[in-house]
Each structure stands twice: as C-alpha cells, then as structure tokens.
C-alpha cells in the first residue's frame, strides 16, 4: 500500500520538517510501522557545494576506514560527522547513520562530460555492491535523506527532522512486503540530486533493471523503486529529456491515443516509445521524483495507485491522500487528481 507526499516551495522559502511529519502520520493506515523516511532539499547551506554522502554503517570500526579511503582516493572529505539522532524507545538503532561532505576530484575522470557526478555515482555503486555492512543512501548536494524502520512520526523524531529546513520535502510511509525492517529498504531512494518516493510495485522491473544496467547502473537495494531514480537520471541528466518528456517515456500514452494525435505529436510519441520501450514502467504505481529544481508526480498508465495534488501560494503538494495535504496546509487550493500518466510538475521560479 504505502503513502507518499511531496512539497515544493517555488520561491525556495524554507519549511522545517514538523508539518510533513504530521502529514505522513496522517496516512498511517497505509503503513505498517516498519519503514518511513524523508528527504529534504536545501538542508546543508554551509556545505551546499559538496556532495552530502549519507551512509548506514553496521559497525563503524569495521567498515568506516574503507569508505574514508575510497572517498579520499577520489576526492576530498571536507567534513564528516555522525548524523545526530535522539534515543527513541520504538526505534532500534541497528545502523550508525553517518554523513560526509565530499568534493570529488574532477581530474580523475578526464573523459567524462560530468566527472563529479560520475565519480559520485561510481562510488555509490562500488560501495553498495562490494562492501558489506555499508550502504550509501543519499548522495546529492545540499540534500539529506532521513529514513529508518518505524512509524513516520518516530523516524522523524529519531532524526530530529524539525531541526532541518528545506524548500523541497518528500516523505514515505511504508508497508513493506519484501525487506521489512531493513533501513535501506525504506524510501526515499536517492542518487545524486534525484530522490524518489514510490507507492506500488513495478511489474516491469526485470526489463527496466536490465536496461539500466546496460548503462552501468547497478541495482543494489533489493527493491524496484531504486530503478526509478536511475531511469530518471539516465533520461533527464544523461539523455537531456525534460521532466515532462521523461514521464512520457516512463508512463507513455497508449498506442490508441498516439494513433489519434496530430502527425507531429504522433511521430514524437512514437519515437519516444520506440527508443525508450525498455524504460516503460508497468504495474501499479504512484511516484514523486524530486531534484534540486523541481518535483514531479505521476502514476502508472491506468492509475492503479492514487495521486492528488494541491496548491497554496508558492507551494505545490503531491500526495496519496488529500487528507495528508490538508494536514500540512489546511487552506490548500486547487485540489487536482491527475489523469493516468500525466505528470504534475512543480518548478522553482526563484
């Protein structure tokens, strides 16, 4: 089942984490208390030029040395610290969450057009596939993911998210079927500046994963959601598609609709489906994807999961439930239930 919510303030006005905590717990009927998480954009202004690499260590003494060494090999660790948490009766601290602020050395990837991003991606894949007891779960600039096994309000209190201020927040309330209790299995999933929260199941995962792996991504988190982050990264960052066009590739119109379009549009959508057929995502899903400039919400092609949006002033909200949005902003306006496959996009205007 799962409940999701996302908000963007289009003028970058900062919001602390207390209201999204309330909104997410409003959807506890959609979760099971075994996983919840948040991501916030704009939370590390003093380190905003560095990649904020967030790591779960099973045992600091055993594996931190190896991560330090790998990061130092590829760049400079500007600062690192344990992520502050509070003792919490209902959350068992099975991992030690840590964060590094990291500056990659671009000269080490000379042939790349985006060397810093490629280095960070490489480090994430390398750590998550080859090191045991270590998981990098957040790797963007000025972005922090806070997730654990527990109810949303407990996870929020555990990480003290009311102390963080961001202009974009996503939250996820999990009802796990596959990897209950594993912190890494909680959402949001993040790679570089992309973060994803997802309600549903991707029946095309086997196709999507193999497609994305042929571009060098490696799926390491035992869940179908991470593939969404990689697909968006490939389509938007590497292939240069707009958010709208990327959604048209991931959840395209049916051929019946395409056949009825005017010629130019028909050719465009045919080209998208032919080129990005293996990226098409099937199965029931509602997803919100964020990067540093925008959030995009969309559902599968026959809308087998709910998604609703609302606006208030400069803020755009996207959620599984209107009730959750109203918890964050009681005076919300323009409540819209988007059609299957059509994206809701919120972009910064300042």
């Amino acid at each position, binding site marked *: 089942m799962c409940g999701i919510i996302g908000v963007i303030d289009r003028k970058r006005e900062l919001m602390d984490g207390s209201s999204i905590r309330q909104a997410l717990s409003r959807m506890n009927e959609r979760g099971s208390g075994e996983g919840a998480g948040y991501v916030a954009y704009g939370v590390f202004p003093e380190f905003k030029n560095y990649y904020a690499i967030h790591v779960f260590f099973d045992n600091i003494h055993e594996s931190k040395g190896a991560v330090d060494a790998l990061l130092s090999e590829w760049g400079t660790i500007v600062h690192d610290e344990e992520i502050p948490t509070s003792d919490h009766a209902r959350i068992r601290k099975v991992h030690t969450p840590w964060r590094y602020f990291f500056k990659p050395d671009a000269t080490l990837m000379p042939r790349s057009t985006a060397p810093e991003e490629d280095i960070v991606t490489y480090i994430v894949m390398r750590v998550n596939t080859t090191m045991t007891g270590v998981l990098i779960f957040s790797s963007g600039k000025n972005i922090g993911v806070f997730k654990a096994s527990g109810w949303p309000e407990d996870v929020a209190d555990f990480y003290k998210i009311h102390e963080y201020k961001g202009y974009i927040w996503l939250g996820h309330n999990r009802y796990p*079927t596959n990897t209950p209790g594993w912190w890494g299995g909680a959402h949001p999933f993040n790679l570089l500046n992309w973060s994803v929260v997802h309600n*549903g*199941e991707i*029946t*095309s*995962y*086997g*196709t999507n*994963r*193999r*497609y994305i*792996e*042929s*571009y060098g991504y490696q799926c390491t988190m035992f869940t179908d959601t991470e593939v969404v982050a990689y697909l968006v990264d490939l389509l938007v960052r*590497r*292939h*240069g*598609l*707009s958010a*709208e*066009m990327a959604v048209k590739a991931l959840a395209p119109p*049916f*051929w*019946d609709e395409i056949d009825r379009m005017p010629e*130019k549009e028909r*050719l*465009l959508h*045919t*080209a*998208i*489906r*032919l*080129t*990005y*057929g*293996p990226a*098409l*995502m*099937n*199965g*029931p899903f509602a997803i919100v994807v964020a990067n540093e400039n925008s959030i995009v919400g969309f559902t599968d*092609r*026959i809308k*087998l999961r709910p998604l609703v949006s609302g606006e208030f002033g400069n803020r755009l909200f996207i959620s599984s439930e209107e009730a959750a949005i109203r918890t964050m902003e009681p005076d919300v306006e323009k409540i819209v239930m988007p059609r299957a496959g059509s994206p809701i996009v919120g972009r910064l205007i300042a």
Partner: protein
Amino acid sequence: MSIGTVPLKFRVTIDNKQCMACARCVENCSYGVFRMENGVVRVSPRHCVACHRCLAMCPRDAISIEERPVDYRSHPLWTTDVKEAIFNQARTGKIIVGGMGNALPYPVIFDRLVLDACQVTNPSIDPLREPMELRTYLGKKPSHLDLLTKINGDVELISTLVPNLKLETPIMIGHMSYGAISLNAQTSLAKAVNEIGTFMGTGEGGLHESLYPYQGNMIVQVASGRFGVDINYLERGAAIEIKIGQGAKPGIGGHLPGEKVNREVSVTRMIPEGSDAISPAPHHDIYSIEDLKQLVRGLKEATEWKKPVFVKIAAVHNSAAIAAGIARSSADAIVIDGFRGGTGAAPRVFRDHVGIPVEAAIASVDAKLRQQGIRNEVSIIASGGIRESADVAKIIALGADAVYIGTAALIALGCRVCGTCNRGVCAWGIATQRPDLVKRLDPETGSKQVANLIHGWTDELAELMGAAGINSIESLRGNRDRLRSYMLDEALMTVLDVKSVGA
C-alpha cells in the same frame, strides 16, 4: 538381402464391418497405401507415413493406424531409429534426408519454465476491460532521442527514425518457400498475415505474382542461392531478410529436389524447370562479418533505405557474439533460428545434432547485446520450435521482440508432422507441387484457420500479460524476473538468468 525386411513403422487396418468401400482413402492417400480389389479396400501398410489424410477423410472411422506394432528388442543405445538409419545407409551408402525438425527427445526448455501472475500486492489487468498493447515495432531504434523544447513549450523531434515494421501481434510466420510448400499453402499464410496485421517470409523461393496483393505483409528473403532475387522482388517486400543459416540445418544450404520444381516454381525461383535448387552452404560473397555488413548496405541502397533488413542465423554455440557483430552492421533485426526449427528437407544428422535450443540462444544474445549497450537498437526475432502462446510469452520474457512460427502454422493447415515433406507428395497439399494434391488445400479456408490460430495465441498472450500485471509488451520483453525454472540445472539457469521456482 542380408538385412531383409524391417518391422512395419505403421500397421494400417481397416475394419471391414465399418468400411463401405467408398474408396476415399484410395483417392486421398498419396503414398500408395490403399488400393481397391474386387470391391474391397486392401492396404500396403509399409508405405504409410501416418499423415492421417485417410483417417481424416474416412466417413466411417474404419481405419486405424498403429505405430510400431512389432518392434525391435528394446535397447537404450541401439534404438529403432539408430538401427534403421544403419540399415538404410548400409543399403545406400548415402546421407539420410528427412523433413520437419529435430526428432531426438532432447528436453524442452520451454516446458521447464513457468510464468508469473499477480496476487494481492499488485492487481492483474483484465484485457477485456483495459487496454493491452501487443503492438511491436521491428527495426533499428536510436539509443537516445534529441528533442528541442521551444519557448512556447512545444517539443520538437530532432532525431529521425528509420523505417520499422509495425506488427499488431508479436507473432509472424517464418520463411517457407514456394517450392518447399505449395502456392495454395503460401496464399493461405499470406491472406492470414494480411488479415491479422503481421508478416510472413517468402523463403528463398521468390515471390509468385499471385501473391503481389499481399506483398505489404511479406518479408522477402535473400539466401545463398539468390533464387528469385531481382530488384522487383526486393522492392515488393515490406522488409528483406538475409538468410545465413537455418536451425534445422546449421552450416549447410537449402535443397529443393527437382521433382518439386515445376513450371511456376521455376519461373518464380528463376531456375530451370526440373532442376535441383541447391543453395551453397555459405554465401559466396560473405566470408566474414564485414562482408555481411556490405550486403546489408547493398540491399538497403538498392531499396533506397526504405526497408528494414533482417539477418537470420541458426542458433549455434557462438550466436551471441555473432549477433553482436550483426547488430553493428546496418541490420535492423536478427533472427535466431533454434535447433528445433522445421524444414522441407535436411540431412538427418544435421537436423538432429547441430545447433542449440532457441531458448538458450535468445537468452545469451539478449544478454550480450545488453552488456554492449546496444540491445534496444536492434530487434531480435526467435524461431524454431514455438508451439503455443506460452512459448511466445516465455521467449519474449527471455529477450525476443517477436517470433516466427512455421510448423505451427502448417499444422493449422492440416499438417500432421509426418516428417516426409522432402518426398513432395504431401497428402494435405502443403509440401507438394502436384496439382491434384495442391488443390486439396483451399486458401480461403486455410487462411481462416491460420488467422484463427494467431488470433487465439494473441488473445492468450494478452491474458498472460494481464495476469502478470503488464499492459504493454515492452515490459514483458527481457523481463526474466517473471519466469521461474522448474528443474533446470544451475548452469542453464545462469544462461537463462532465471531463478528457480520458489526463489
């Protein structure tokens, strides 16, 4: 005579209490099993091939056919087939030729793979009530798109797409030439693909004039003998296929016996009447991959880059690397023909012993192309041993874009897989050129039956996809997570990249 008479393959008996001496069996058997003597039907069972034409035509169910009523002493090694092949070659000193596909009881991988269905966590999709997309495009595709977003928000397509074949179902009919099969058989298939919105191959036999109305659904073949090839032929096809090899006989060329080359066949193939049409083993202008590339480009130039060009190879041990080489040419699709593929005539030793199953070949080709990051740029067509819609779903999940069926389509026309296509006296009017036999096959009825078959499979495929929560064929393609192996060995599971049932 030191070998003497061998046991009967089939015992044919007539129940005289049932028989009304109508002589339909006498008339229908083209193998000479039946004759009328003094108002009673007599049989020469030794001629019987079990094509069941007599059974099908007998109005009184008076005929029964029994396989191997008297057999040799059973032996696991020195089987009946082995012994009879030895007798045969001891007598003749020749290569044994047979029709149809591989006749050895190798395990069938398809039957050790099971499909998935949704329960609870995701809903299955009902194709009767929701859209279900089987449309498939075959041909080269770009690796990424160049789009231009204008100031007013309109998006313009900068990349240009090359022509693709548009199929309304991923099921096509493979290449069976006019000559190997009759014109009525080809016409039946042509009408069927035209009705369904899919395609069929001409085989290396040219395109008969009477099939021109269906040329929009025909893929013309260029094989090593170049029979029937001229610019008119190339231009008429919806696509062109270069045949390098065939699953039923990898490594050797085709063989159409002169008896099947009548006037019409001779004109269509552009060879003398009555002459054997023997295609060379290799193309003598293709001795390496770069030569193939030139032929692909040559054919594209000749047809002004308007038609997709496919390359068909037999599934052999190194198919994956070969396919990767083909994908780097301008070829639009690669056809992988598995070792169970049928044929009009093939040496028994090749038919039964050379090549690999299509399931393993497709899995390794798909994986290799993905490793090299070029999988979606080229299409993969699987053929050879596709028997039912479940096979289609499984091979697509292993990585194919579409399939060719051959034997299944002929069975829809009445073929009983008796395996004597090479003899040219097919009692069903399919693998023969004898006018009296050919006319038994009515293209109107035949096409209806073939169209029904493809229609039925397509509906079943849609139901299977819906049950798996998939509403677009792209999401089934290469989706090996939706397959499980049931009692396959670990090495094969690695090749197929599937988990075990329960895992």
